[in-house]
């Protein structure tokens, strides 16, 4: 008994040590890639801003102050050092609005990506595993969906249903399932003929067991890669909807909404439209860089994405 316990402890210890070294290996590889490091910093920065917005914002993002309207950013004539990037047409602090804007951007895009990933993966698993009619129905549906200019369909639907958080997430989520379904389906088509799947079947494993316990774990790496790349797309999509006035409604600060406001004051106050777009671009660039690195690490075959 004593011996067994000792052995278990030793084994456990060895396992832990191996996991640490593997983590270190990944970390080292990440640090070797400057782009991925930049991406990680951007992503962590946005998450940090979104979570800690009330603590780190210098001002109230929706507090209007007519006397302080359209203050230019630091370094320009007439700038107020309290307002690093200036103020908007209602005297609201741009920095604080950018920090709070991260919240909507993250909440909407993460939820929409999660929704579409779950939906697409399930459809892909079933289409690939069962084939036949289920498969053709879903793949034709995918073709129909890909035919639409997404943004036009999304604004039409949101305009009908009303622009609230729930509708925006659902519409964006539904439009994203195709890519997951296609990749997962292709993967499952080759996996289902593998010996280990036959073995599970021979042992009496049900279809559900095969799908969720044996096929699903194998399609996780490509799904992770798609999720990162889709995050970038969803952030731009949310901003586009807000820009068109069909995103989360004011006074809640959104990056796209700030851009739309800034467009009106473009000639006199360039900073209004410039900074929100710059933030979107840097965040999306960061996610893309991180996604490219992840893809090379996890699944180099997906270069087409």
């Amino acid at each position, binding site marked *: 008994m004593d011996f067994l316990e000792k052995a278990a402890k030793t084994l456990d210890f060895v396992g832990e040590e191996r996991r640490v070294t593997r983590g270190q290996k990944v970390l080292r590889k990440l640090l070797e890639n400057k782009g991925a490091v930049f991406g990680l910093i951007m992503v962590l920065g946005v998450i940090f801003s979104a979570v800690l917005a009330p603590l780190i914002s210098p001002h109230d993002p929706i507090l209007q102050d007519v006397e302080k309207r359209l203050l230019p950013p630091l370094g320009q004539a007439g700038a107020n050092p309290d307002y690093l990037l200036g103020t908007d047409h209602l005297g609201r602090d741009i920095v604080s609005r950018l920090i709070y804007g991260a919240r909507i951007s993250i909440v909407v895009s993460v939820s929409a990506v999660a929704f579409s990933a779950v939906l697409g993966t399930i459809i892909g698993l079933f289409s690939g595993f069962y084939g036949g009619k289920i498969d053709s129905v879903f793949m*034709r*549906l995918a*073709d*129909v969906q*890909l*035919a*639409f*200019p*997404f*943004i*036009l*369909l999304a*604004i*039409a*639907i949101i*305009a*009908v*249903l009303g622009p609230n958080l729930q509708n925006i997430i659902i519409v964006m989520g539904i439009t994203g399932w195709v890519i997951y379904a296609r990749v997962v389906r292709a993967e499952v088509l080759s996996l289902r003929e593998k010996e280990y799947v036959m073995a599970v079947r021979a042992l009496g494993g049900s279809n559900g067991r095969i799908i969720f316990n044996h096929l699903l774990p194998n399609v996780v790496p490509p799904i992770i890669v798609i999720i990162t790349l889709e995050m*970038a797309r969803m952030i*731009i999509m949310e*901003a*586009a909807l807000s*820009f*068109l*006035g069909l995103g989360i409604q004011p006074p809640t600060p959104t990056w*796209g909404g700030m*851009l739309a406001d*800034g*467009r009106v004051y*473009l*000639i006199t106050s*360039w900073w209004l*439209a*410039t900074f*929100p*777009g*710059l933030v*979107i*671009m840097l965040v*999306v*660039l960061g996610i*893309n*860089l991180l996604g490219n690195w992840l893809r090379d690490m996890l699944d180099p075959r997906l*270069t*087409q994405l």
Partner: protein
Amino acid sequence: MKSYILKRLFHCIFVLIGISVVVFIILHLTGDPAALLMPMDATPEQVAQFRKEMGFTDPLLVQYWRFFQGTLHGDFGLSFRHSQPALDLVLERMPATIQLTITAMIIAMIIAVPVGIISAIRRNSILDHIGMTGALLGQSTPVFWLGIMLILVFSVTFQWFPSSGRGTLQHLILPAVTLGMFSMARTARMMRSSMLEVLGQEYMKTARAKGLSPRKVILKHALKNALIPVVTIVGMELGTLLGGAVITETIFAWPGVGRLAVQAIYNRDYPVVQAAVFLLASIFVLVNLVVDILYTYLDPRVKLG
């Protein structure tokens, strides 16, 4: 070959029917299209009267059949705002959208293909790094922000190009560059990886071994093969461009279908929305049909399945 084309045609018709179902459903999402279409201040009696007139009390299938027959005749109903047939309004704006989309596509290809080739030939050189960094930036920049920044720099500051409207060549440049940027970036990266793949093939060694000049090897042997995958994505890029046109046209007040559709959504002029969405989606499907058929001629290895 003939059976393949027939099969693709059949598939196409299926997708077009799918598109008409989706376009029909948009109006019925809330369950009460009459409330959606009538002005906010209409009395319940007026709404009930309208519901009856429009046949919204019939079973959904009957209504869809009526809608479907209408689309076959190009009849999407009258625009509420302009009291003209919705289809005519959309067709009137179509040339502007086609002009913008094709110009954007041409600009994207003219820049992306050489950049991709040079990046591949001079792999890891300064040129490659500049090209690919630019491509990554281009892929991460939101269309609406890029458009606004181009207006800020080239219309407001330098006054080289007008910021809105359609007419002269000058009007076309900024919107076309804005719209084409994303496709340009994606195509450049695709061209590079496609070229790198071809350059690694055995027949390239053969071509070099028989003493052909490097220029001839690249232009005659590599380029021809590397372009094949790029040609297919031209069809897919068209979808991106038609979608992007919705936003680009809104920013530059370009009188195309996208802007018309966005305005119609704001005005709750749903027949116009339906006609615009249906037409844009159909164009995408038809162009991809043509590209698919052309592809089989370009690359005889394609399995006609």
